């Protein structure tokens, strides 16, 4: 018996059905593995990619069925990031729910909060009672969040093609925006700032002047990206 395959299924639990053959990851000589496969005449290999493959950006598991180097079927396992937010929120008040939804997408938390709060307000019939100033602040922080989120997309996109500097400058600019959001809500991310009925608090006293410095910074540095990427 070779070292990289076993006829006894060592992975099966006591109540599972035994597989007739399992492959082990001990390695071995490639030509041995290839010739053994040729003898077996079984060209289909099932490869378990993940659940923590470095190129998957978040935890994803792919079960690949391979015929040689061709993927013939794929089954994605997408449940690793599921956190049971809906179930948890059955036990929370509407206001507490914001703390959960803000964590649904950590690069665009304010959008999650906004849609959740709009839905809650619609359900409670208080849509018209939201102060105009709160609505304007919501749009303001969402637009800033949008820029920050796009910077992450652009930066990691640059990183993907080997332009690591695009990532470092994009995250630097993003941090400027997060500084403003931190001054506003107390948290860089997962703000729980938009609440049913309005927002958690008004802009801080130096809020608008802080925002102007952020915008000046962005105006100065955003043109760099074209130079880096082109």
């Amino acid at each position: 018996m070779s070292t990289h395959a076993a006829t006894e299924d060592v992975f099966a639990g006591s109540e599972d059905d035994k597989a007739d053959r399992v492959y082990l990851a001990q390695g071995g000589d490639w030509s041995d593995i290839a010739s053994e496969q040729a003898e077996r005449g079984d060209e289909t290999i099932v490869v378990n990619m993940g659940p923590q493959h470095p190129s998957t950006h978040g935890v994803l598991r792919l079960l690949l069925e391979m015929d040689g180097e061709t993927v013939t079927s794929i089954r994605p396992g997408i449940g690793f990031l599921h956190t049971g937010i809906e179930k948890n929120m059955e036990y929370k008040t509407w206001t507490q729910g914001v703390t959960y939804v803000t964590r649904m997408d950590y690069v665009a938390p304010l959008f999650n909060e906004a849609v959740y709060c709009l839905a809650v307000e619609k359900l409670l019939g208080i849509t018209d009672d939201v102060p105009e100033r709160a609505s304007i602040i919501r749009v303001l922080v969402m637009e800033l969040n949008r820029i920050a989120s796009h910077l992450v997309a652009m930066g990691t996109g640059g990183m993907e093609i080997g332009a690591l500097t695009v990532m470092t400058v994009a995250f630097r600019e993003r941090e400027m925006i997060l500084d403003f959001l931190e001054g506003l809500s107390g948290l860089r991310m997962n703000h729980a700032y938009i609440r049913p009925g309005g927002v958690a608090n008004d802009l801080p006293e130096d809020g608008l002047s802080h925002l102007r410095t952020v915008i000046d910074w962005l105006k100065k540095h955003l043109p760099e990206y074209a130079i880096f990427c082109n």
Partner: protein
Amino acid sequence: MSETQPEQNLPAQAAAPASQPVFARTEGMWSRGSGDTSGYGGLTRELVMPGRSEGPFGEPFDGIHARALELIPALADARVLVDRGELTIYVPREQLLDVVRQFRDDAHLRFEVCVSVSGVHYPQEKGAELHAVYHLLSYTHNRRVRLEVSCPEEDPHIPSVVATYPMVDYHEREAWDMFGIVFDGHPSLTRILMPDDWKGHPQRKDYPLGGVDVEYKGAKVPAPDNRRDYS
């Protein structure tokens, strides 16, 4: 201040019309027997579902509803609800396949996309505990409609609409995984989020929040609150 009526100091009580069945009563701010220290322990509320709406519903809902009745006469008795500016049609599960096909293909309806299939569990609704809610969107006419289908817990079967809307493949798998609704005719109805060998459907209302032992290859990891003795 002397004219102030005592009832003005109390929260407004929404009187439930007789047509709207009360499906639950809650007491206090938290209704699930938790230690309530909020001071609202005396609060009692009746939870009601919106009942049914009678026409006319206003455009574009009247148009959608009239066309649906024209194409599928069996929908004549179906419950229709217009609430908060959204139209919901309650479709018997026997008619679902016919309804979605007509809703997609008919030029006056043309709901090209099923945005989402959501499962819901109403343990109080005897005989119709499990619901599947289909959110349809028409790009052509820029409008939305919601279809709601129910099935009893003892017979949790609803026909799959993947043949009409291929994009609901994963949504139906999620509704199966989380609520245990079996979508007959789905190409591969397997669990999508939970492990394949998981027992139970976590988003049913009677499924506990936490306190569930995790089992993996024969080894058992107790729930966090049972892992050690804090006394």
